[in-house]
């Protein structure tokens, strides 16, 4: 087809290629020659061949002589002392001339940067957790994966049942750490570790030396512990600190009991009034980067001897490799290490290694492998930080671009006088970098002022690391980058302008520029919407969890641990305490009722159970006193509660609805049920109530009466407003009955709130960040509105002269922005819905994502937009039109 054209021409793409690569000073002759040759060939061989020939010729000309550019006659220095002084002066004057714009610009960027810095500090401090040890890459925690019923579960601590240790006979005990060390020579050190304060059984432990009594929280660990971890020992022998029946204590603890850490060595501390431990070492107070926390460490040997109580029946096993490279070897050896002890069983257990410094951030398990945890929050907030900075950058860019209209004439003049493009680019980039550094100074100021507030909310101890070179270089880099990115568009755009057209006043933004600016506004709004919606959702969920009816009344409840003389004398205590004024009810429970952690499968049997139970949810057996129902104000569905007047009730059971369902009973009352070797009849069914956090569904509960248990908590309900009185009374009785233990109590509702600490923190943080994002977006919007009014001054004045009312003008101006808002709203809703749903999946009991969550956020943003537009537009709508039309 092309051959039949009346005037066949050379292929366009080839000509373009030539134009692109050829040195400009040679282009004309080469192009001319090629074209002449083409005409010649056309006559000779026809257009088709001529075209082919042309293409070959173009390709053949790609030779050094044609590629090489001619050197410029004039030196191209971008940097010039006088010029930079001039640029600085001009930047300064520009900032001053447009005060409103400059303030919006600088403060917006400063807020964004400040936000980014705070988040970075937080993330950094979280990441530094557990990184202070001498060989962080050699330290591992042994985790387990359990395959059973086609499901894989796992955890960082290995249940004692799986490690089949023999409690009674320490010498012949199977102990994972020791066995591992023996079996796998690549493991240099190994230590078991478990705390004494974790739930379900843990509690602060009472120590006595002479007359001094203190309650402290600590852990148990093996001999190797101090060799592996960098907890400096300041007194005593590090090697022998945890041998025999010994204890190592912190500097703080040493100072509580003795004059100085040195005095403590060799002294004896009495543990829970039943065991004497020799102080083998004093270690430095733990740094805040340590995820393990303990005031003391009791030797594993003493723990295994049996008198030291365990808090939780699954233990950590830490190992240190001799060589970093041995990890794969050790991993393959350790994988099936435990399975040989569990041959022929229905489950399969595997062991794996998790780097010690990742334990804190990756504590969740999915399919039996570590995945996620705190790191998810870190990632989310890092994302938020980056987005907020992005918004700030976009604003900065938008404002600078809009303002560039005013600078276009300057560019025209500069170009006419002889400024090169690169000089202009440097000028504009320099200006924006200067502004961004100004913002940095402001941002640092904001951070410095705000950090105490942040620390109070998150319980962190963040400080500006003023002496950290890395921090400063990162910050400088970030600011420089921000400045360059923010200034890039105006710099490149302005410098490309054609001076003649600009000076004639024919300067206009291209459609694409306007479009991209609108796109950026939409992006900003999307981020703001997302943050607002997530803030509302998180806040609502948190509030929901705190206000949900748990099925019992958690107000005015305090609990005291059953310990020491309280164990045998509980009856006397209950008697005397119930006579005190200010006390409404008193009873006991084997676990704090708001956070029951003890759960079992096998020992629970019931009438109608065929062979083995195949339940998937473990039962939660709990032992209480006779008055538990009255104390907690629990509701009965069927039957009756325990009664003191009926002593046979000690062998009776109560269950909750969930348990009835799980056992598959039709008429539960009167049927037998057994737990371990205790068997009895069900006398009542409790209405389901929450015994743990709302993350988890209600578990099947089995309740019986045991008032003589050697552990548990005494739960007291005080009369409203009389808590202080009641506490004083209780303390007096405690001191009398149980003199070897200090009186300590906890408020149930405080402890209850602590469960949701993470969610509360998230809610608070997202409140803050959403607020910041909105402020920054508003600043950006404000700038754009101001600019668009500035641009349309004359148009508005003409409209007024022709009879437009103030409301006409307001409508006209706000319409544009409202369209953008609605676009971004439409984009955000599905996005936010998806993310929020994901987050809510973590909770067994959660709020619904109702339409009004979206509606509120939409309305709020629309309102803000309208207010900003109106405030700005009013000024110009009221202004005298003559003022703006007179100039021409």
């Amino acid at each position, binding site marked *: 087809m092309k051959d039949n054209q009346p005037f066949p021409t050379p292929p366009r793409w080839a000509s373009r290629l030539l134009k692109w690569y050829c040195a400009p000073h040679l282009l*004309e*002759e*080469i*192009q*001319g*020659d*090629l*074209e*002449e*040759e083409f*005409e*010649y060939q056309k006559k000779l061989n026809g257009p088709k061949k001529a075209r082919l020939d042309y293409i*070959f*010729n173009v390709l*053949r*000309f790609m*030779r050094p*002589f*044609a590629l090489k550019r001619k050197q410029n006659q004039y030196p191209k220095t971008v940097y010039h002392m006088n010029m930079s002084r001039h640029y600085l002066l001009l930047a300064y004057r520009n900032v001053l001339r447009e005060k409103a714009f400059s303030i919006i610009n600088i403060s917006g960027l400063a807020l964004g940067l400040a936000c980014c810095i705070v988040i970075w500090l937080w993330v950094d401090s979280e990441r530094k957790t557990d990184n202070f040890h001498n060989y962080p890459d050699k330290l591992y925690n042994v985790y387990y994966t359990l395959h059973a019923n086609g499901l894989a579960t796992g955890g960082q601590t290995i249940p004692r049942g799986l490690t089949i240790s023999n409690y009674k006979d320490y010498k012949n005990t199977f102990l994972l750490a020791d066995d591992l060390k023996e079996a796998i020579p690549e493991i240099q050190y190994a230590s078991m570790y478990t705390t004494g304060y974790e739930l379900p059984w843990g509690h602060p432990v009472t120590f006595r030396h002479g007359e001094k009594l203190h309650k402290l929280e600590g852990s148990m660990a093996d001999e190797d512990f101090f060799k592996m971890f960098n907890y400096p020992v300041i007194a005593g022998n590090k090697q022998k600190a945890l041998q025999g029946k010994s204890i190592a204590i912190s500097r703080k603890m040493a100072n509580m009991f003795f004059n100085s850490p040195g005095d403590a060595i060799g002294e004896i501390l009495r543990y829970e009034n039943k065991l004497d431990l020799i102080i083998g070492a004093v270690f430095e107070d733990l740094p805040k980067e340590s995820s393990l926390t303990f005031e003391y460490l009791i030797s594993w040997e003493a723990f295994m001897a049996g008198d030291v109580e365990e808090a939780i029946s699954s233990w950590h096993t830490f190992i240190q490799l001799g060589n970093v490279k041995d990890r794969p070897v050790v991993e393959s050896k350790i994988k099936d290490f435990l399975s040989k002890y569990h041959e022929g069983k229905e489950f399969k257990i595997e062991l794996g290694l998790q780097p010690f410094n990742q334990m804190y951030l990756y504590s969740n398990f999915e399919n039996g492998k570590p995945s996620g945890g705190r790191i998810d929050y870190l990632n989310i907030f890092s994302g938020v930080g980056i987005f907020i900075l992005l918004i700030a950058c976009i604003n900065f860019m938008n404002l600078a671009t809009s303002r560039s209209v005013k600078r276009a004439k300057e560019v025209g003049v500069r170009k006419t006088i002889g400024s090169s493009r690169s000089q202009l680019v440097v000028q504009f980039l320099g200006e924006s970098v200067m502004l961004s550094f100004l913002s940095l100074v402001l941002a640092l100021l904001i951070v410095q002022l705000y950090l105490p507030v942040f620390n109070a909310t998150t319980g962190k101890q963040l400080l500006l690391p003023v002496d950290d070179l890395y921090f400063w270089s990162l910050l400088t880099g970030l600011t420089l980058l921000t400045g360059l990115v923010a200034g890039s568009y105006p710099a490149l755009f302005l410098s490309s302008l054609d001076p003649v057209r600009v000076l004639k006043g024919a300067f206009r933004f291209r459609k694409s520029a306007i479009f991209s600016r609108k796109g950026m506004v939409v992006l900003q709004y999307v981020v703001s919407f997302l943050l607002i919606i997530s803030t509302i959702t998180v806040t609502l969920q948190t509030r929901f969890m705190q206000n949900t009816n748990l099925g019992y009344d958690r107000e005015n409840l305090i609990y005291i641990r059953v310990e020491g003389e309280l164990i045998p004398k509980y009856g006397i205590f209950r008697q005397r305490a119930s006579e005190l004024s200010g006390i409404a009810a008193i009873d006991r429970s084997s676990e704090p009722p708001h956070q029951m952690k003890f759960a079992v499968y096998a020992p629970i049997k019931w009438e109608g159970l065929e062979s083995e139970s195949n339940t998937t949810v473990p039962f939660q057996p709990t032992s209480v006193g006779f008055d538990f129902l009255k104390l907690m104000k629990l509701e009965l569905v069927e039957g009756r509660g325990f009664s003191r007047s009926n002593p046979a009730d000690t062998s009776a059971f109560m269950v909750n609805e969930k348990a009835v369902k799980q056992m598959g009973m039709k008429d539960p009352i009167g049927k037998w049920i057994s737990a371990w070797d205790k068997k009895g009849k069900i006398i009542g069914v409790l209405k389901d109530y929450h015994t743990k956090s709302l993350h988890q569904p209600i578990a099947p509960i089995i309740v019986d009466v045991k008032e003589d248990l050697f552990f548990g908590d005494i739960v007291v309900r005080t009369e409203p407003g009389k808590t202080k009185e009641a506490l004083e009374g209780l303390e007096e009785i405690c001191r009398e009955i149980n003199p070897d233990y200090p009186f300590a109590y906890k408020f149930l509702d405080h402890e209850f709130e602590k469960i949701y600490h993470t969610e509360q923190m998230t809610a608070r943080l997202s409140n803050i960040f959403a607020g910041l994002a909105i402020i920054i977006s508003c600043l950006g919007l404000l700038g754009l509105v101001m600019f668009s009014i500035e641009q349309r001054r004359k148009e508005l004045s003409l409209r007024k002269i022709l009879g437009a009312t103030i409301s006409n003008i307001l409508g006209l101006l706000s319409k544009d922005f409202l369209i953008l808002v609605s676009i971004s709203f439409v984009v955000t809703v599905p996005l936010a819905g998806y993310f929020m749903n994901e987050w809510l999946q973590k909770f067994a009991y959660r709020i619904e994502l109702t339409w009004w969550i979206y509606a509120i956020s939409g309305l709020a943003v629309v309102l803000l937009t309208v207010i900003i537009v109106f405030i700005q537009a009013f000024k110009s709508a009221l202004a005298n039109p003559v003022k703006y039309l007179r100039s021409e």
Partner: protein
Amino acid sequence: MGEFEEIVLLVVAMLEGEAYGVNITHEIIEQTFRKVRLNQVHASLHRLEDKGMVISRMGGATKARGGRRKRIFTITAYGRQALHDIQAIRNKLWQQQPSPITHAIQI
């Protein structure tokens, strides 16, 4: 100076102020039956100009060239001298050849 450059230079001299890329190429093809491409000629011309054997100026435009000007090359005195030198050396060497070669060529 290479053999090809010598030919280009000779053609430039021959065309007397009319020499530019296309017609030099065509002239060489016609006279020597070699397959010569424009880019080779251009490259040689550049080298010759660098050596100072030709000078160039931008000449008139024609329609066939899409209105673009051509670069006209003229030989310099130095270029001419160089050609003469080469010829002299050749002649001298030819005269000193033993007769078999001369005969061989004549055959």
